[in-house]
């Protein structure tokens, strides 16, 4: 982490993040298997801070497994074996001493299907801070408002904060889930197919939000929608059968991929 050398980087550096970008997440020879079945085979990459990084690839390529490693969501699945290292802001997150709850506060997650609690809009966002022991009502109120503002939802819900979150539209529910994740002030935001259940306008709002949020957070998004990766991300990684085939800045990946398998996938030539 103490790389202050001004010498040119050796050609073997991990793909994806140019030397000028500060890495937020460093993944080193990460392997994951479900029982005997390998799902990730030696992934090494550096994910840049304050950027949107997208993982694309066909179903079963390991992109969601990779995303879920970043806040140890895979711990919850039986028979998972993980080797290799993941460092977030320089700290190894795999070690036994890591407080997983604290890790998930630092690395928030938004899922494919919006999953608001069957509570009021306010209580959904206040949930995290309360769990973390914030007692001051005004402090929670401030946090709820700023999170809802960050998630571009405040203007739509400010007059009905105490209504049930389940009465919001799908797109609003998804932004509420983002607000809920932001309320605990994470450093990284993981998004697993965040727009696959949304219409194009709601999708555009989430993508716009990603662009605004990356100023403060590092965002990693898994998407089946290649156009979404092209529109919304700064870096894109293409995974296939558990391997990171190609990882580079998004315009380069979508105009001049180097690997034939990337080329075939993004041009719609599926083998």
């Amino acid at each position: 982490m103490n790389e202050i050398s001004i010498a040119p980087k050796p050609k073997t550096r991990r793909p994806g993040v140019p030397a000028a970008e500060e890495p937020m997440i460093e993944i080193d020879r990460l392997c994951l298997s479900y029982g005997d079945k390998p799902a990730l085979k030696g992934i090494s990459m550096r994910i840049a801070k304050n950027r949107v990084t997208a993982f694309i690839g066909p179903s079963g390529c390991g992109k969601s497994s990779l995303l879920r490693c970043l806040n140890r969501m895979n711990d919850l699945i039986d028979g998972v074996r993980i080797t290799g290292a993941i460092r977030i802001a320089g700290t190894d997150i795999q070690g036994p001493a890591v407080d997983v709850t604290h890790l998930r506060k630092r690395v928030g997650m938004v899922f494919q299907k919006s999953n608001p609690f069957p509570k009021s809009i306010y209580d959904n966002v206040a949930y995290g801070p309360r769990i973390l022991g914030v007692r001051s009502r005004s402090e929670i109120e401030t946090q709820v408002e700023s999170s809802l503002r960050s998630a571009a939802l405040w203007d739509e819900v400010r007059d009905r904060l105490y209504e049930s979150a389940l009465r919001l539209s799908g797109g609003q529910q998804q932004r509420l889930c983002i607000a809920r994740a932001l309320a605990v002030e994470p450093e990284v935001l993981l998004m697993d197919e965040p727009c696959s259940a949304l219409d194009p306008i709601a999708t555009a709002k989430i993508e716009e939000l990603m662009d605004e949020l990356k100023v403060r957070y590092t965002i990693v998004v898994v998407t089946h929608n290649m156009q979404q990766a092209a529109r919304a991300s700064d870096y894109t990684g293409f995974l296939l059968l558990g391997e990171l085939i190609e990882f580079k800045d998004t315009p380069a990946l979508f105009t001049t991929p180097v690997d034939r398998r990337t080329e075939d996938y993004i041009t719609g030539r599926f083998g």
Partner: protein
Amino acid sequence: MTQHTSRHYEQELQALKEKILLLGGKVEEMIASAMKSLLNRDPDLARRVIASDREVDAAELDSDHLCLSLLALRQPAASDLRFIATALKIVTDLERIGDLAVNIAERSIELNEEPPLKPYIDIPRMATAASSMVGRALDAFVRRDPVLAREVLGSDSAVDQLNVQLFRELLTYMIEEPRNVTRALRITFIAKYLERIADHATNIAQMVIFMCEGRDVRHPAAQEGEAEEF
């Protein structure tokens, strides 16, 4: 290359390629006919070249329309995107080549109304070289062959050289006898048109290299300090 999962998409890309080839064949034929009308003093043939420009214009619109609909409906990426971007650009070059062939035909009609100034020697050589550049650039496009495209780039200076040489020669005719000026100027124009045709072939070859390798070889000076890719 592997086929697209969508057969319809595959067919549309193939159709675009065929449209460009047809257009390319058409303008090559126009250059040949325009030159033939000049050398054989055949104004009827020259008029047919002028008339065929409408087909070229229609083919340009048709090809551009297909490119736009592919961009809008298929959201192409990678080599498909580069292929369509190349198609959009080279169609313009081909249409301009067609216009230049028309210009040659127009000068040919004018020159044929007067006695010949001198036997044509360098002009046919220039036409052969320029036309061969167009043909090879189109072959490189069809075969996705960057090596052939680079060969085309290397041929441009020979045409430029012939143009300079011819200009010098015609200048002596003009200095010698003011009554030669009109005809000598018209021949100079034809040389200039052929030189421009070679430039358009060069543009096509540069785009083919971009299409094949994703590397922009145009204007190296303007690209200094930029990233290697694009």
